[in-house]
């Protein structure tokens, strides 16, 4: 692959004696949407932490645009399952958090945050505190905060895991819209196979103890995808293959 945005090159993570993530390599193309699916304890989050620079790998490299970013934070946008909005900052204040933490949130940052909120349906809530928002709205703000951090790569660690099924489906479609608008490269962790297949260009299946990549599936389902996509034969077929892989490994 010549247009790789991100190259995970033989990354391995040990915590003392425990092998949390066995030697893992993965290349992600510029603008690609990759989902990682696997049981808990398969090292998904460990891998994300390595890419985000929160965790130094025991060995291996993470190359972004030709530079090694392993163990060096501040190069990617990271979003967690919990929205982690700061209760004392308004929606605008939360969206510009990245700028505030790394320097100063300027008035143009704030203006950009407001228009971002307006574009994605939160224009009336820019001065609200997070506690006055619903779970889905909070998660939207968290994603906007990640977008407003202006990084090419977004790491999303089960961002919709805590939402109810209906909100979740809405958020998935919204995320695809945002992704199409922004042209960012996305790595998305989930343990929901439906979600993994629905969103991705490629689904990476991981297995546990030690965490490693077990299989990679290309998703040949055309875009744009809608709720109807969930019922197409291609989708069903791919979903059953991913499920079979997961189930097969865990039954052993």
């Amino acid at each position, binding site marked *: 692959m010549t247009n790789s945005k991100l190259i995970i090159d033989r990354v391995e993570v040990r915590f003392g004696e425990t092998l949390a993530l066995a030697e893992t390599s993965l290349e992600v193309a510029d603008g690609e949407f990759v989902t990682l699916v696997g049981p808990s304890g398969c090292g998904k989050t460990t891998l994300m932490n390595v890419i*985000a*620079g*929160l965790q130094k790998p025991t060995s291996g490299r993470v190359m972004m645009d030709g530079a090694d970013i392993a163990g060096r*934070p*501040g*190069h*990617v946008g*990271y979003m*967690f399952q*919990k929205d*982690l909005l*700061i*209760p*004392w900052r*308004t929606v605008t204040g939360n969206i510009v*958090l*990245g700028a*505030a*933490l*790394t320097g100063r949130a300027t*008035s143009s940052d*704030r*203006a950009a945050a*407001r*228009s971002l*909120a*307006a*574009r994605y349906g939160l*224009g*009336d809530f*820019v*001065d*609200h*505190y997070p*506690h*006055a928002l619903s779970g889905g709205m909070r998660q939207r703000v968290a994603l906007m905060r990640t977008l407003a*951090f202006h990084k090419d790569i977004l790491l999303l660690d089960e961002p919709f895991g805590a939402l109810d099924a209906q909100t979740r489906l809405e958020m998935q479609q919204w995320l695809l819209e945002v992704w199409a608008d922004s042209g960012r490269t996305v790595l998305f962790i989930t343990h929901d196979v439906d979600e993994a297949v629905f969103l991705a260009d490629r689904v990476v299946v991981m297995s546990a103890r030690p965490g490693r990549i077990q299989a990679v599936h290309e998703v040949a389902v055309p875009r744009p995808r809608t709720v109807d996509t969930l019922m197409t034969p291609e989708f069903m077929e791919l979903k059953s293959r991913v499920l079979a892989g997961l189930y097969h490994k865990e039954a052993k």
Partner: protein
Amino acid sequence: MRFVRSASPLLAILLVLVIWQLAVSVLHVQPYVLPSPHRTWQALLEDWTNVRTLAGQTLYESVVGFVIGTGVGFLLAVAMSHLSIVHRVLYPILIASQAVPIVAIAAPLVIILGYGLAPKLVIVGLIVFFPVVVNVLDGLSSIDSSMVNLARSMGAGPAKIFLLVRLPATLTPLFSALKLAAAYAVTGAVIGEWTASITPGLGKDLLLKNSRLDTAGVYADVLLLTAIGLAGFLLMTVLENLSTPWRTRGTARRWFRRSASPDTKGPR
């Protein structure tokens, strides 16, 4: 409803006054045992010029001791949460400091610090700093570690993380402590005056009037001391509401909205 809610503290005070008056008149209590509210008020007015300056002195001791004690308490909590060695060494000492009866330590404090302002400030400080330490430590340790990880993943340094993520999280528990401390500070000042007293103050005055069986005067002083403590408590409540608007409001106050010009609001 709103009127009843805001008036209810006043009604409560009125209720206490009524019960007090009834107790005195129905049970025929002698004025030197328990003066009526009216007599107490009379005593306060008669001695007002004298009592006013004494109250100023006690207020001064309370406020300065409060500021020093809560300030030291806050800094200790921050140091303890950042350096576990400080926490391990200091925590048992702090607990022990609270086990020492304040009245007992007041006398030796006079030997060390003399009869001036210093021992009073130390006593007030000793009383008020502990709730601040405990509450601020609680606030600092209640911060979600993934919140800190998020900030780190954005490349933020420890100073920025402290300022934007940790520090504001201490405000709510800090004010709970400050409200307690504001009321305790007056108690501290009075204890200080009782044991280390050649400078005048309400506490000293109270002892003097007590020895003359001027019970109405004693109650007048008590009323003033209570008023000082209440005022401190109310002031802290107002400051709390101003500095933690997200706890009581859904949206930011208009004058805190930066660059809230309509042209940046975008389409509705």
